[in-house]
């Protein structure tokens, strides 16, 4: 069953009761919440996602609740729970849906050690993946969203899951998190994709979440092969520029963005070295999103250059 097969009221009732078992890529997330904006966000942005009917197992059991006491009336808040843990401080109630998204990212980044988990957006064309590691504010999510709106498949806007066993990238198709100016950019660039209302004054500024094309969700079980590693940088007024970068420096930079690189030890190093060897590596500067997406739509995968060892 897909989320869209449930009426909004029915979804809301289930979330307030025993919860729903939401399939997101390789994970099943058991979500419970009495908060209406959580139900609305799931109904809007997870419409094409499957609900698991097997309630015997979930990778993550999460709840979003409202703290009791005075906070119920004065500046109401939301708390994120995973199992019996509350890993974050409460946020204003209006940030409940973003908190669900951030919390699910935290669950994966901190527990899915069968993958090398890299803080990077990743999209795919013809099952060849482009990994985009970059710090906040670099224009990574905007470029990712723009490519998805122009035919690329979203694997993840935040967490690149590289299999330690075979180097393939596992999709984790969930809504794209947009911040500040990129929200208006994407409303104009991709009016056909659903988007939540803006949520102001979060730790990341103003945020909104964008839904995915159906293909990104329905092909959520199809892995992709790493083909490019691109470090995007939005620079106002700049020309579009794609410049090759060295692989050794690329490996170090991606390692810095690895959530569990140090946990995986030598397996993480070997996995990452193999990934870098298979990819064309670039620095990318842009200011015009349409020009950027046109460039990547014309990009051919490069031939892998295996690393030498010693």
């Amino acid at each position, binding site marked *: 069953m897909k989320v869209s097969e449930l009426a909004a009221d029915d979804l809301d009732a289930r979330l307030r009761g025993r919860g729903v078992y939401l399939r997101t890529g390789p994970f099943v997330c058991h979500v419970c919440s009495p908060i209406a904006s959580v139900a609305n966000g799931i109904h809007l942005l997870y419409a094409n996602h499957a609900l698991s009917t097997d309630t015997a197992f979930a990778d993550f059991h999460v709840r979003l609740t409202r703290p009791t006491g005075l906070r119920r009336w004065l500046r109401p808040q939301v708390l994120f729970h995973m199992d019996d843990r509350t890993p974050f401080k409460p946020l204003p109630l209006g940030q409940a849906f973003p908190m669900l998204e951030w919390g699910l990212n935290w669950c994966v980044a901190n527990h899915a050690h069968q993958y090398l988990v890299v803080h990077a957006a990743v999209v795919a064309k013809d099952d060849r993946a482009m990994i985009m590691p970059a710090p906040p504010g670099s224009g990574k999510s905007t470029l990712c969203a723009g490519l998805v709106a122009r035919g690329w498949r979203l694997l993840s806007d935040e967490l690149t899951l590289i299999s330690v066993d075979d180097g393939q990238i596992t999709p984790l198709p969930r809504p794209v998190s947009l911040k500040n100016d990129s929200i208006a950019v994407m409303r104009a660039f991709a009016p056909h994709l659903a988007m939540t209302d803006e949520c102001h004054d979060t730790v990341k500024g103003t945020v909104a979440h964008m839904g995915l094309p159906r293909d990104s969700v329905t092909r959520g079980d199809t892995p992709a092969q790493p083909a490019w590693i691109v470090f995007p940088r939005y620079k106002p007024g700049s020309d579009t520029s794609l410049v090759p970068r060295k*692989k050794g420096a690329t490996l170090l930079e991606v390692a810095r963005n690895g959530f569990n690189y140090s946990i995986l030890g*030598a397996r993480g190093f070997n996995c990452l070295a193999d990934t870098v060897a298979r990819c064309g590596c670039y620095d990318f500067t842009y200011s015009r999103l349409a020009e950027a997406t046109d460039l990547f739509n014309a990009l051919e995968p490069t031939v892998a250059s295996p690393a030498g060892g010693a």
Partner: protein
Amino acid sequence: MATGVAWRLTAPTELQWVQWGDEWVLYHGATGDTHLLEPLAAEALQALRDAPVTTEGLVAALAGDADEEGRRQLSTYIGSLFETLSRLGVIERA
């Protein structure tokens, strides 16, 4: 810089390397650190794989037909490199 000091790898079996052209990437499993090395640094480090080496011994092995100034610069470089690698836990005094 210490003279006559022999250096050895701290954990030889914990080192892994990959190379692309003039870039060498070293993974040191004992500390979990990853280092990007230039070719001369990689060559110096690999010289330690078989047996402990002094700065002077390595300079003699690598200098070839370099003149006195070249040998002096190489010695300074190797001495500084070994101190850095020691601080990083990659090598230690033998």
